[in-house]
């Protein structure tokens, strides 16, 4: 019997049974979403409000999100703090709750988040009672500003959105994990389950994965693979892996003969 450690994950006033957050974009069909929710066991799902048409006569992404999922609308498309704030307010007014993932991107070429605008939006929205999840470059100073602004978690990118290139910002994310007293949810760039596992092993609290699941040949199976990887990474983190060494640890050490003697037989 393996002794299990207590590992609850509570965020934004919610107790979550999964540390995998998923998205709704890029699927060949939104009708896959319920099955992906099921296979991943995820509890949180992000949705770009700009894509939601509440009066749609056509298929609408919201129809496919199971009611037990915690919605985390995002401000994708916002170029300024002001636009992000207006999207957040619209999300709440249309019944999407008070969780909001702030994405302010002023660079369409690299899709990198604007830390300054993100902090401004976070400060205002937290005062309005939103649970704010800001998406940022893993920058310690921006993260500290966000802590002061009242964010409930920090969402640093592993690599630029949609690149699937993995945790390229590992060292910077490790600094956030060590120094920031908020949950760290690694978002963007995670292309393979092993990347998610790596982030969790390092001590991230959760990962948000969209592109890698949505654009795989089998999103349902890939979702399951990510859920497994995140669980494995988290368990490894909790199990506290043995330290790594630069040199081999010989089983017959050359210096094993040394005793605390003074050469006297």
């Amino acid at each position, binding site marked *: 019997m393996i002794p299990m450690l207590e590992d609850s994950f509570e965020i934004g006033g919610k107790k979550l049974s999964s540390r995998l957050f998923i998205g709704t*974009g*890029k*699927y*060949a*069909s*939104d009708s896959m979403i319920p099955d992906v929710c099921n296979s991943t066991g995820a509890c949180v799902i992000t949705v770009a*409000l*700009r*894509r*939601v*048409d509440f009066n*749609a*006569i*056509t298929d609408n992404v919201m129809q496919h999100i199971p009611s037990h999922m915690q919605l985390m609308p995002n401000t994708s*498309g916002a*170029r300024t703090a002001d*636009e992000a704030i*207006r*999207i957040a307010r*619209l999300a709440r007014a249309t019944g999407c709750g008070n969780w909001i993932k702030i994405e302010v991107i*002023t*660079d*369409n*070429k*690299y*899709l990198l988040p604007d830390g300054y605008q993100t902090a401004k939006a976070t400060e205002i929205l937290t005062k309005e009672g939103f649970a704010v999840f800001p998406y940022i470059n893993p920058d310690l100073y921006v993260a500290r500003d966000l802590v002061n602004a009242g964010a409930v978690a920090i969402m640093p990118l592993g690599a630029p959105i*949609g*690149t*699937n290139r993995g945790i390229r910002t590992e060292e910077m994310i490790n600094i956030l994990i060590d120094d920031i007293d908020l949950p760290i949810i690694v978002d963007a760039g995670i292309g393979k389950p092993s990347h998610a596992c790596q982030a969790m092993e390092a001590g991230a609290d959760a990962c948000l994965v969209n*592109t890698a699941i*949505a*654009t795989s040949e089998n999103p349902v199976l890939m979702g399951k693979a990510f859920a497994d990887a995140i669980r494995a990474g988290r368990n490894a983190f909790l199990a506290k892996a043995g330290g790594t060494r630069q040199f081999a640890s010989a089983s017959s050490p050359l210096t094993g003969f040394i005793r605390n003697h003074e050469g006297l037989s």
Partner: protein
Amino acid sequence: MSFFSVFEQYQTMDIENVIGHMNQQAVLRRLNKNTLSIDDFAALISPSALPFLEQIAQKSHDITRRNFGNTIHLFTPMYLSNYCNNRCLYCGFNHDTQIKRYQMSLDEIDNEAKVIASTGLKHILILTGDAPKKASISYLKSCCDVLKRYFSSISIEIYALDKKGYENLIQSGVDGLTIYQETYNTDLYDKLHPAGPKKNFQFRMDAPQCAAEAGMRAITIGTLLGLDNWRKDIFFTALHASWLENHYPETEISIALPRIRPYYGCYQPEHRVTDQDMVQMMIAIRLFLPRCGITISTRENESFRNNILKLGVTKISAGSSTAVGGHSLSSVQHNQFEISDTRSVEQMVTFLETNNIQPVFKDWERF
């Protein structure tokens, strides 16, 4: 600094010759690069790249899927007015063409909008000829007031404006601009536009950056393929798009690839653009500009459109009419050009869904 000064520098080079002399080694060197320069792009659109078309297509497909997912954005054009002061030799709305001229009233626009919106479309592209006194800025602003009730995004394809003009329309709810340079060959441009405001090549070239400076969210540029050697025109289109991306990173830049189609006056294009050429330019653009939108209109036929959807395209028009009030007016108007893919929005959606591509109707929320 404007793109025109960059264009002038490149104009001194014999681009056609440079592209024509790329060899297969030059292409191969570029195939494995992650970030491409304009020189690399020139290699990919050269005749020497043709043996590697499938490899480039696979890469283009992967990049598109990663950046845009398994989705295609849908929109449709709405022709508001066909009055025009230009004499563009290739255009059905040319001032000298003997066609019925008409401009929709606001009530007619409301009806047209209702019909289009009933298909589920939320993005509209409004078009006029170049007649600012008739299809004036204040007329367009009033049109936007009507259209805002039905559509979450309004783009314009009208005469070129300065920054102030674009600011004015943005305030009324316009968020996208489509503007074609038609050709980057200045001599040919001069011949094709014998009279009218559009004759000013540089004013037209400056329009996309004026719009970007005015705060336009999305800008689509392009040439009318078939007017000149496509390799040369696409080289400059990509150079222009790349320049806009670098100088206005907050703006979404797209390239449209319209191939010339017959119209009422029967202009005969001098340069052939084959399906293979279309594929080559599209996938080369994707490798050079991974985040750039690529638009294909209903100028292309059904079979071709079906086959290129996985190659790099991100936006398509559907259920199109190129006549003023083409969706709702009972009197028959002349088309700007003949459309080739006549499928309705519903038929297009069915096709996309059957092929595991999600049709996206809405991608912006106006406040």
